[in-house]
């Protein structure tokens, strides 16, 4: 199914619960944290959507709005992609885990939890994955400044982008 048909199919099932958006040929549906699990299950189990290939799960820092968690899955049989996006509050944001639907989500959720500080309910082991254990802070948040850039000015002749 192409993105527009997929969008209609999902809206027909969930109505106002999700907001679809098609950008550069990719469908992204934004749901509230409460509806996230239901939409993920549907995307995995419905015959016409059947997204069985797990691509990634990441966070995007949306500053005042919160932290957006983006789950991107693909269907091998139908050759379409779906992104399920859910915005959680910056402090104490939690989402249900999807690692029982896609086993690959296990590590991706651990990585998002340590880099952004988002909790995942039902995850068996949210220990740090990439960072050393004594690391403090959530590095990919926008307020986490890179100390090397603060301590020493950029050594190149021009700022990035000039």
């Amino acid at each position, binding site marked *: 199914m192409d993105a527009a048909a997929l969008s209609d199919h999902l809206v027909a099932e969930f109505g106002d619960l999700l907001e679809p958006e098609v950008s550069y040929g990719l469908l992204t549906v934004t749901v509230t944290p409460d509806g996230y699990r239901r939409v993920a299950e549907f995307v995995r189990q419905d015959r016409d959507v059947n997204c069985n290939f797990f691509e990634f799960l990441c966070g995007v820092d949306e500053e005042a709005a919160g932290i957006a968690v983006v789950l991107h899955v693909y269907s091998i049989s139908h050759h379409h992609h779906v992104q399920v996006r859910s915005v959680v509050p910056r402090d104490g944001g939690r989402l249900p885990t999807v690692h029982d639907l896609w086993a690959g989500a296990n590590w991706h959720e651990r990585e998002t939890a340590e880099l952004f500080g988002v909790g995942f309910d039902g995850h068996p082991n949210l220990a740090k994955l990439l960072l050393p254990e004594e690391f403090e802070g959530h590095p990919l948040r926008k307020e*986490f400044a890179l100390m*090397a850039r603060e301590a020493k000015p950029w050594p190149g002749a021009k700022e990035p982008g000039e």
Partner: protein
Amino acid sequence: MGLVDKVELPQPIKFVFNWGRKYSLWVFNFGLACCAIEFIATSMARHDFIRLGVIPFAHGPRQADLLVVSGTLTDKMAPAVKRLYDEMPEPKYVISFGSCSNCGGPYWDSYSVTKGVDQIIPIDVYVPGCPPRPEALLHGIIKLQERIGTESLKERYARGELEPIVVGA
């Protein structure tokens, strides 16, 4: 160690000892990142470093003379490097291969990268490049061998305990 660390050897014997040491360096494979690929390429048939006397595939740090740190050192890996360096018996030499191990390299502003392996262990030769060509590593090895050739073991051991380097302090 017997007399070697207490007595300054006469020049002919020192020449022979150093000649033996510099042309039989067992190198400990400590490939971390991309520079490890160029290190492996240097050990392979085209840019062979065995002909210079550097023997790859030491069985462990305890049987190695030379440590070539090739690749980015992260804060998580730093204690392992220190431990492996300490396990090597004296006299030992370290070549820092590549700009990541020299000074942090392209990741100079990263939160998880140690800016240079010389913050943790003392280095004898720095080979710059990203990644350096195999010929650069051969050049670095030759420079190291020149230094070993004129080295006095008594002075080396008389330096005593090397000052500990504290990471992050």
